[in-house]
């Protein structure tokens, strides 16, 4: 007969909520009643927890057990509550002292023999626990490396229910995380110097990297579109601590964090195949949606090779995340929001036959139009830079070597630093994040400078959004050139890279 409390974390997308688990034992026939919006997996916890407790050598109370998860209106999913449920029952039965449980969050799925199984999303759970002011967290031993990424929490790793119970009564110690892993710089991505020629496309990539813009590369096969796109991620600066943690949280929620739990600061490059499903691209799944490729590419690059081969509905689904930097997915069990601030890199052939030299093309003109027409206007409107790749005419190339990643990257980082310093007071990091109205009011350029934009607007060559986007590119060009603000020539360059005729 008794009442006890334990705490755990419910994961909702990448946001965690502290959940209080109350257990009341006694006053009726044996049975377990779980209340507080549990899902199917959590309902099964009743049987798992009982078997795990009995097989660990403890007595299961032969009475009525009511387990309440609060806040009761929050939907709780998954198997991560098992450990907290088991401890709540044992404490209510008087086997564990309640004070030992106070201030601790218990996470983990129980196997029937009492082993603690790893759970998905340890990292966001811990971040939520820390935000809620919890002092101690117990995680499955397998999640300890991932847990060590969170500072300011006492984290313990346990291999079994018995370990946890002995630790709670002070009979044994639990595992502690090793030293916080230093961010590893994975093997450096391939070098930009490998790409032969392509001055325009290189320049477009440099601008895109410096300002966080989206880019489309069009050209015949074998000219290095894919090579260039893969090297693009090497131009980006390393992720800051907060961004790296955000990304690790998304990966953790997707169950994709490497076992070693290393916190990588290399921006992600996600290159899904064009047969990818909507759920895999945007995020999805039944119940509560899981993050998709756009979120896994958060703070990195989403590279769509052979863009016209992609189903139009997939490409158009990218429009909202491109604009908002987040995706909101609504399913039966609620809406989740995942961050998705990625840079889009599209690569396309000019036509289906795609000979080495465009003049040899045998496609009917209608087919050519249809081919690139699959990239819808609204999508292309959001692509700031378009570059045409030229056929390579000589393998020997010019005597001097092509610019390397390191050379371009140093310029990119300098430009990003200039932009960050300018927007520091406003909370934006790159030019791409700055809202259009701000660029047109507080940071308005003289009428003479933006005249090319006005005339392009009047001629219907660009949309109002396109004009905003060209302005952002112009600011990036100014940052790259080390200027204070863009002048007319830079605005014209921005418009040149936006030119629809390139695609």
């Amino acid at each position, binding site marked *: 007969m008794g009442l006890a409390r334990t705490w755990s974390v419910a994961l909702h997308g990448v946001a965690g909520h502290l959940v209080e688990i109350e257990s009341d034992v006694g*006053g*009726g*026939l*044996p*049975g377990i009643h779980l209340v507080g919006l549990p899902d199917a997996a959590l309902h099964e916890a009743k049987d798992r927890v009982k078997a795990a407790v009995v097989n660990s050598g403890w007595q299961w109370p*032969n*009475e009525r057990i009511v387990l309440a998860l609060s806040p009761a209106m929050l939907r709780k999913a998954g198997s991560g509550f098992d450990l907290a449920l088991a401890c709540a029952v044992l404490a209510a039965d008087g086997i564990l002292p309640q004070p030992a449980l106070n201030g601790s969050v218990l996470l983990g799925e129980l196997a029937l023999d009492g082993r603690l199984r790893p759970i998905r999303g340890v990292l966001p759970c811990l971040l939520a626990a820390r935000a809620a002011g919890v002092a101690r967290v117990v995680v499955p031993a397998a999640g300890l490396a991932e847990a060590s990424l969170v500072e300011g929490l006492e984290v313990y790793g346990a291999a079994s229910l018995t370990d946890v119970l002995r630790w709670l009564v002070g009979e044994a110690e639990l595992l502690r995380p090793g030293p916080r892993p230093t961010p590893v710089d994975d093997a450096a991505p391939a070098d930009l110097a490998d790409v032969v020629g392509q001055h325009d496309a290189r320049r477009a990539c440099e601008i895109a990297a410096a300002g966080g813009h989206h880019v489309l590369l069009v050209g015949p096969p074998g000219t290095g579109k894919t090579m260039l796109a893969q090297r693009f991620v090497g131009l980006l600066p390393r992720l800051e601590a907060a961004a790296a943690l955000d990304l690790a949280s998304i990966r953790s929620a997707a169950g994709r964090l490497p076992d070693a739990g290393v916190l990588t600061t290399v921006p992600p490059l996600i290159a899904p195949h064009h047969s990818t499903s909507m759920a895999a691209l945007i995020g999805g799944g039944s119940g509560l949606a899981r993050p998709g490729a756009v979120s896994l590419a958060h703070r990195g690059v989403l590279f769509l090779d052979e863009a016209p081969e992609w189903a139009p509905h997939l490409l158009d689904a990218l429009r909202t995340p491109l604009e908002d930097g987040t995706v909101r997915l609504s399913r039966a069990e609620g809406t989740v929001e995942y961050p998705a601030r990625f840079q889009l890199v599209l690569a396309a052939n000019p036509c289906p036959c795609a000979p080495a030299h465009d003049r040899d093309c045998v496609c009917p003109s209608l087919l050519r139009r249809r081919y690139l027409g699959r990239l819808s206007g609204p999508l292309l409107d959001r692509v700031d830079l378009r570059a045409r790749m030229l056929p390579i005419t000589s393998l020997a190339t010019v005597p001097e070597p092509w610019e390397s990643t390191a050379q371009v990257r140093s310029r990119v980082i300098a430009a990003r630093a200039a932009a960050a310093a300018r927007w520091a007071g406003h909370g934006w990091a790159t030019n791409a994040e700055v809202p259009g109205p701000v660029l047109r009011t507080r940071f308005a350029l003289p009428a003479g400078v933006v005249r090319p934009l006005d005339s392009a607007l009047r001629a219907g060559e660009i949309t109002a959004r396109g004009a905003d986007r060209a302005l952002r590119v112009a600011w990036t060009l100014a940052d790259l050139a080390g200027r204070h603000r863009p002048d007319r020539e830079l605005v014209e360059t921005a418009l040149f890279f936006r030119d629809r005729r390139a695609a």
Partner: protein
Amino acid sequence: MAAKDALGRRGEDLAAAYLTEHGLVVLDRNWRCRLGELDIVCTDSTRLVVCEVKTRSSTRFGLPAEAVDARKAHRIRQLAGAWLAAHHVPWVEVRYDVVAVLVEPGAQVRVHHYEAAF
């Protein structure tokens, strides 16, 4: 008498003894009507206590008390009403108890009394 009926009978005897020992007065045992049978009807002098006795000789198929499910509880409620009507008892508070008896061969008999079980 079949072995299982003998076990049930022994369990009911043990339960009745247990209840008497704990201050309850047994009014009726194995009361039958067309709805079924009530194992023990007793009173603690303020209310009627309707008692279901469940006996098992091992826990291989679960605890005795676990066998009392919602359907069984419903039937006992109906039977209690029938008992009150048959005995012309006016309104009275009724409590439903379960007595679980575990008679494992070679071990001490265990009796667990769940008061107000449903």
